[in-house]
């Protein structure tokens, strides 16, 4: 069971002078239990791709298949797809509307038909998962801090217990602690057997937490592979506005000067490489 995308293309404002191709023949497959990061510069088509995964966009060409169900195939399957693929939008706190945290978090599962104890359990489980104290349940979400609001919004998606969790730039606007909590949540979700599709422009974060990475540039797949594979080829591909992590820049420089044999974004691995290369000399 997986989420697969094949030859997906999408063009905005088709036929208008402002026509712009957002996605060009995107293909990938994400498995349950892995963190799959989609990395791209601003305007590379990441958010358009995210919305396709949840069936929010009408397919123009290509296909998206979730656990064997084709998005856009049978209209009655759409609810099952949306239940299976939880989508956390960028700045999700802007979607908050309820009077209490509990009501906000229960919005998703109650839409899927849950009620009573089962609903209560889901709300509590989502709050625990995101690290929100249960005393927050009756709090007014509009009175919470920015970070707390973000957690409530993410919990409201987790409460639906999706098998695939798509997060669009979840780290935007978070401080260091918030970022640590987020990465720990993503790891926890993948350990629970969920597929985490992490959409970001933060290459360093993607290299640190992902099992696999897909780089998209101008709507097309530029590279796809494990963090070590991606680290090895990043200097050869056009990453546009993405910032290369310092550790990788150092790695490339050392390789260029013949001081190491292998490119890596892992600090301890790089130290080991330098040590091995020095001792050989």
């Amino acid at each position, binding site marked *: 069971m997986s989420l697969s995308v094949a030859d997906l293309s999408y063009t905005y404002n088709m036929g208008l*002078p402002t026509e712009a191709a957002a996605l060009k023949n995107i293909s990938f497959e994400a498995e349950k239990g892995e963190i799959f990061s989609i990395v791209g510069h601003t305007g590379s088509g990441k958010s358009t791709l995210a919305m396709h995964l949840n069936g*929010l966009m009408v397919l123009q060409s290509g296909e998206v298949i979730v656990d064997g169900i084709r998005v856009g195939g049978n209209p009655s399957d759409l609810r099952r797809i949306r239940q299976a693929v939880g989508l956390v939008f960028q700045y999700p706190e*802007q979607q908050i509307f309820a009077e209490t945290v509990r009501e906000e978090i229960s919005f998703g599962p109650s839409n899927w038909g849950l009620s009573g104890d089962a609903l209560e359990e889901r709300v509590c489980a989502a709050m625990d998962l995101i690290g929100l104290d249960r005393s927050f349940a009756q709090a007014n979400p509009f009175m919470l801090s920015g970070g707390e609001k973000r957690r409530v919004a993410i919990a409201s998606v987790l409460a639906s217990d999706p098998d695939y969790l798509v997060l669009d730039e979840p780290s935007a606007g978070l401080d260091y602690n918030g970022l640590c909590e987020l990465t720990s949540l993503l790891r926890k979700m993948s350990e629970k057997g969920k597929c985490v599709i992490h959409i970001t422009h933060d290459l360093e974060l993607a290299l640190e937490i992902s099992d696999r990475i897909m780089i998209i540039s101008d709507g097309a797949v530029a590279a796809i592979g494990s963090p070590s594979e991606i680290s090895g080829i990043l200097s050869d591909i056009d990453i546009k506005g993405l910032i290369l992590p310092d550790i990788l820049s150092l790695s490339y420089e050392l390789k260029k000067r013949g001081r190491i044999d292998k490119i890596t974004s892992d600090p301890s691995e790089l130290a080991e490489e330098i040590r091995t290369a020095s001792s050989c000399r």
Partner: protein
Amino acid sequence: MPLIRGMALGQYIPADTPIHRLDPRSKLLITVLSMVLIFLTKSFPAMAMWAALIFIVAKVSKIPASSLLRSAGPILILIIFTSLLHVFFTGGETVIFSIGPLRASAEGTITAFRTGLRLFLLVLFTALLTFTTSPSELSDGLEAALGPLSRFGFPAHEVAMMMTIALRFIPTLFEETERIINAQVSRGADFESGGLLKRAKAYIPVLIPLFVLVFKRADTLASAMETRCYRGGKGRVRMYPLTWGSAENRAVLCFALFSAVVLLLNRLA
């Protein structure tokens, strides 16, 4: 999400065409005149001429016909409602059919068709203005047009600025609304099934975040303008002054000739 996609009202489509390049004052003048003239138009051949003019201008401006027609979408209900009122309440000798006490006359049906067509043409013509004129150009044009009134204490600049901001934010608000709708739909919200009350209630999770966002945005915008020393129109100068040249003269002249022909056709009918 097809709920609000396709609403084109107030959307500027940038392109380098002779219509786009015209001074906004000339386009405003032509639009205002066309509003009066379309309402004066009674004959169907004259209306056909208006439709032809609209589509020729759209073609020259590289505005797809589909986008132009879509711009009438939001007020289609109003057009249909007005037309229906005319069908049943205009009165006339020849009754086509009746529903209870309501009688649809042939005269009423013709009037309904004429009124509906007039409203439709009016919307399309005004849409051409917003399709081919950027909000800032429109504001400049409005300010210049209302300028003489400022001698009598009318806040021309402020009114123009308010209209610009309103126009500028129509697409942004559509985008924000669409984003919030998408977020709620992905959490299982259903806006398309159930009765009227249920569907209206389903929009609460959209309207509350939207209001919060709009007020925050308005507050930020006001602060951003204030921090850049905005104090209304007094003492402000323009980076790109408006210029009325031969192209504008030609456009107004062509429109005047067209209007004369339309009025003549109207009189002959």
